[in-house]
């Protein structure tokens, strides 16, 4: 499973940003944004990222994240696309307009093909289905951050 998913993300990343991701080091300044309206998912995901040494900025409301994104540089965001108020896809669309270079990792409750296609059309994303496979997820976050730093 890991063999199939990671090469996909790496493939995507390398296609667009041909940078050696392994050369990039983790840095405390590299803040990962996390958006999920489910407090339990938000908290546990934050904890998972934290356990791997990431600095996490968590948002339970997508609007707050969008406000944050206008004034901060966002290298990477982990986004739930099944949220109230503004759906994940909408956030994605606005974020792409706002900060086109931000790496996006979408986490979703189910593997919704329609949503995946829409997301692909909007911008560059990596998809993960809940519950998260920790290693694949964390690797994807590492890769994403490294790519973002490479720019």
């Amino acid at each position: 499973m890991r063999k199939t998913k990671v090469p996909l993300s790496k493939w995507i990343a390398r296609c667009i940003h041909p940078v050696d991701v392994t050369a990039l080091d983790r840095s405390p300044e590299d803040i990962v944004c996390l958006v999920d309206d489910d407090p339990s998912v938000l908290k546990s995901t934050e904890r998972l990222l934290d356990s791997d040494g990431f600095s996490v900025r968590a948002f339970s409301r997508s609007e707050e994240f969008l406000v944050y994104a206008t004034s901060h540089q966002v290298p990477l965001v982990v986004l739930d696309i099944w949220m109230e108020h503004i759906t994940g896809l909408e956030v994605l669309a606005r974020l792409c307009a706002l900060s086109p270079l931000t790496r996006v990792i979408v986490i979703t409750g189910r593997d919704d093909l329609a949503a995946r296609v829409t997301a692909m059309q909007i911008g560059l994303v990596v998809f993960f289905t809940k519950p998260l496979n920790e290693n694949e997820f964390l690797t994807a976050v590492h890769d994403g951050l490294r790519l973002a730093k490479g720019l």
Partner: protein
Amino acid sequence: MNPRYKTAFIVLALAIAGGCVFLFNSFYRDAKNVAIAKLNQQQLIHAREVALGIEDFFGTWIRSLSSLSQLDVIIVGNAVGKRYQQLYYEAHREQIMAITRLDERGVIVDSYPARDEVGTDLSQQKHIRELLRDHRAVVSNVFKTIDGIDAVALHVPLFRDGEFKGSIGILINFEDLARRYLDPIRVSQTGYAWVIDHDGTVLYTPNQAYIGKTIFAVMKGNEALEAIVKDMLDGHEGVARYGYDKLVDRNVGPATKYVAYMPVRLGPTFWSICVASAEQDVFADLITFRNKLAVVIGGLFVCGMVFATLGAKAWLIVTEEEKRRLAEEKLRESEARFRTVADTAPVMIWMSDTDKLCCFFNQGWLQFTGRTLDQELGNGWSEGVHAEDLERCHKVYTTSFDARDSFRMEYRLRRKDGSYGWVLDTGTPRFSADNVFLGYIGSCIDISDRKASELEAQRHRAQLAHLSRVALMGEMSASLAHELNQPLTGIVSNSAAGRRLIDAARATLPELRELLTDINADGRRASEVVRGIRSMVKKGEPTRQQMNVNDIVTSVVKIVHADAVLRACQVQISLEADLPRIDGDPVQLQQVLLNLVLNGFDAMSDTPVDLRKVMIATESNGDRTIRVSVRDHGSGIPEPLRERLFAPFFTTKTEGLGMGLAIVRSIIESHGGMIEAENAAGGGALFHFTLSVHAPVSETRVERAALASR
């Protein structure tokens, strides 16, 4: 006493009193008439006596003077004649006051004893005028002489060879005359006589003031008296009466006088004598008679009343007795008829007295239970009631009995063969015609078959509701999976993070504790979701429990949350804070709300995202019902479909059984409520249903008992 009899009694008393008054009146009137006739007769006799006496008196004088008038010496009027006259006077001086000789012109030619009046012309005096005209004996009116004595003059004409030569007359003391003939007249207390001459001049009356006046002046406008006087002046005799209220100018009040009158023939002229007495004299004599009569009639009245009362009472008693006998006969007959009807009716009939104890069971009942009447009487019947129903049965019976309310209850009653059959018992209070409570009467029908089919139908309904719930869960499977996935994600991520922290030796105990707490909470959350799904999907019998509808609403909001997010819909709630609790089946009511909310979501698929709202509201209606409404912002209900909305197998969706709303309605109705659908003002559909705060207790309890018995 009965008011009808009271009236009859009063009428009777009045009739007897009327009879007595009539009797009294007629006796008294007769007596009065007799008394009046007697008085009249008496007065006539008096008048006649007086008239005859006066006639005789004057007749004697006229005859005496006539014989004197034959003497030539008198006619010539010489000394001898004068001497005769003097002698005549002397002979009668007791009665006459003077003797006078008039010539043919009415001039006094000789008078004794008063000679100084000679030469006085009397021709202007009334009676002298008559004398000179008619040449017949005349009697003058009463007049006062110079000496002040009342007197009457009597003149007899003188003729010589047929030629009128004057007259010879005497002056009679009228007072003497009156004293002799009129004064003695006393009839009763007030009776008296009065005399008028043929001109109506009052000659005599006890009241001196009237003497010499004309009677017409005295009576002044008294018509009855005028008629009497007219008759008197015509020279008739008779009896009459007149009323008057004043005497001259003195008011004496209304009074009546009875009179008898009679002419007094005095040669060519006449007087009329009248004897009068007041009515009160007649009545004075009658008073004693009247009093006695009154006593007698009074006695008669009392006796009449006593006998009438006794008679009426006796009659009443007899009729009452007859009525009672008829009523009893009727009662016996109707009782016999009732028993015949009751025993042949295809129902079980019982009756109870005011002490709640049963006093009658018909053949139908006894055949059903196979027991004897004596065994069932009183509280015996309750031995046949199923032990599980007995307490409820007693409670319904006694509560209704004390409130005098009709009741309906269903319970199991032991049959002859020992098995139990369901009966529907309907009891009503009995009242007599005059509204006195007599006890209860009730009828039972065997509803075992109906009960069985009811239970069958109920089971079908429950199965259908279950199927519908399963279908609902199917529709929601995606969102339910998401709902379950969220806590699982939490658990997986948290546990991975924990392991990593431990591996990296970064784990602190408080951090791990917090982490584990979160895992625990997520585990519970997941199990909650599973339990929720299970409760909806499991095949359970309908139950009843006290609950707050608001709790149902919030639980449904939780269940549909994931679905709402998935479909970008919002669920808003408006709950009344102090909602009364109701008796109901929580799963079924959740099913109802789920159905309505999911329908709302479906209806809003074409609605712009920010308008996709479903509103759930609860409120107390105040009339012991609760109103729950679910409103969406979809396209609303097309008018032609509204009718069929709740019909089974009606659906507008491509998937689904089309049973959702039909089952919703059957659930609401089984909770004693009703559901309606309409289009909300401002677009969208509005479903609202009511729930009774008190579900029909007896029915539901019966159902539960029925279920328990199976």
